[in-house]
């Protein structure tokens, strides 16, 4: 199948899911049991957006000044939660600058993917953190789940990680390049980090 057609098909699917998602969101106000299908639908659509963002190839970061704390609070608020969700905390380390420069929409897309992943594995807690590390601002997503290598439900396609990697790499400043890390945290659970120059 040629590239354009693939993109067009995925695009149509994404839009159709958007309509469905809207309807499920409305229904879920009245019927709590619709919450789970709504969350699933939202996460599928998010994946397709991620796929299309990656698929288009060359990614351009439109950098502007953003307050990291506001940004993480919004990321927390926007997370589509499953039933009995873990708590999501936001922590701003001392010394984190009041503003940093990045493409808010792209980084939001990346963090959403990371948070969705954390929601999948977390038992009780997820912590979103911002800190300054040398010339980088680091956003991290930690969950208290079983850590890397654990399998739960469907196998991961690796799309989320690939998307985060590409988005981080689109952020460049005076020879420094954004990047991500994914590892088991010392205190247990999985730790995802996004380093932005």
């Amino acid at each position, binding site marked *: 199948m040629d590239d354009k057609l693939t993109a067009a098909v995925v*695009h149509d699917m*994404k839009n159709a899911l*958007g*309509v469905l*998602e*809207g309807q499920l*969101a409305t229904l879920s106000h009245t019927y709590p049991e619709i919450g789970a299908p709504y969350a699933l639908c939202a996460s599928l659509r998010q994946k397709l*957006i991620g796929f299309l963002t990656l698929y288009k190839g060359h990614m351009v970061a*439109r*950098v502007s*000044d953003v*307050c990291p704390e*506001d940004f993480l*609070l*919004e990321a927390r*608020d*926007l997370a589509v939660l499953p039933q009995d969700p873990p708590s999501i905390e936001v922590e701003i380390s001392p010394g984190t600058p*009041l*503003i940093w*420069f990045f493409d808010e*929409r792209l980084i939001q897309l990346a963090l959403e993917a990371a948070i969705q992943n954390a929601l999948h594995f977390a038992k009780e807690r997820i912590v979103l953190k911002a800190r300054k590390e040398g010339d980088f601002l680091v956003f991290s997503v930690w969950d208290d789940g079983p850590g890397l290598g654990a399998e739960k439900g469907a196998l991961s396609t690796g799309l989320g990680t690939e998307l985060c990697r590409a988005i981080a790499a689109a952020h460049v*400043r*005076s020879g420094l390049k954004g990047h991500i890390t994914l590892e088991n945290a010392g205190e247990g659970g999985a730790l995802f980090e996004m380093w932005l120059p």
Partner: protein
Amino acid sequence: MLSKFSSLRVLVIDDMGAMRSAIKVQLAEMDIVNVDQVGNAEDALRMVESRVEYDVIFCDYNLNRATSGQQFLEYLKSMDLLPARTVFIMVTAEAEYGAVVSAAEFQPDDYLLKPFTAVKIRSRLERLIDKRDALQNLLLCMAKKDFDGAVAESDKLIKANSKWLMDALRRKGEALLRLGRHEEAAAVFGSALAMRGDLGWARLGTARAYFAQGRLGEAEKIANDVLESNGAFVLAYDLLAEIAEDAGNAALAIDQLEQASTVVPSARRFRLLAEAAYRLSRFDIARSAFEFAIRRTKGSITAQETDYLLLAQTHVEAGNPKLAFQVLEAGEEAFGDAGLFGRGQASVKAQAFLKEDNVAAAKKMLVRAGNLLAHPGANLETVLMGKALLASGEKEEGLKFMEEALRKKSGIRMIESVAKSALAERIGGA
């Protein structure tokens, strides 16, 4: 208890009734009930002009009518119709976002990508209203063109080292440029660049300051660098065109503006190209660019009488009075024979009659133009009248109009440059 949003007045512009209702329901969830909704830009304009100031406008990008959301925003901003306290949110589909952002010369306060939830609207509004309140005094000063006040307000924000620091630096730099304090402006843009070296607005602000100081080479280099890193930054083309125009390099000036109009093919871009081409006597380019701007805005609130007047004037100077009459007829159909168009067209017609050697009709038209133009000033009518008088041999009187157009420093290139070159010809001819 009512939420902090409950007092907000909101306007929703979308051609799809279902979409308007959906947003209205989502706003109601946040206790926002003071919501007006319209289906097109024309109705929206009526609301904006007639009602108390809106706090927030949600405008769909794709309005499926003569005027798109982007054109509507450009119109509001260029006509100073958007109150400083109004937050303008452009609603776009995910797929068109990239194209919309890179082709947007006038940026809204934010973009909202469809589909969105009530939670998304809430979190966006929280931040946008927070920002608006923090910047309120500064934005009001800028809107009133009180640039001294704007500098003072920016300084307060800069001193407080708030999260709006970059907004404050940007506005302060712009205000200083307007005040003619170019060195200070360059320093302010420099302090923004010290935080982040690749900010397009700060680099271009520095280039503008250098240009105003006569440091053309440096200004040109920065503008070119900005374009190299972001080819969609059309304001850099404008600066390069101004530098070229001032250096008398017509071909280069036009080339820069043509490139900008390729990147952002808006009516405004073609208008800027057309006006420069006219000033530089490249009448063929001026003609086609004016025609594009007219076609692009036909039947829309964004249509401008000056496009018709200048296209007709271009035809006259290119030796085609018949075409000039045709354009003026179309203009009269769109705008009537009153106001700016009426005043301007009498002067253009006088020149067209002269080209046809119909001196009697030209005289009559000139008298009419004189009667309509009670107060010459820094505007297009005055310049056209000056042109008509000069063409009919009334040199001294014509030059007086040109001087009048220059007296109040309007900063409008189209007026100042045409008047200046008419006056320069006098000196050259003397």
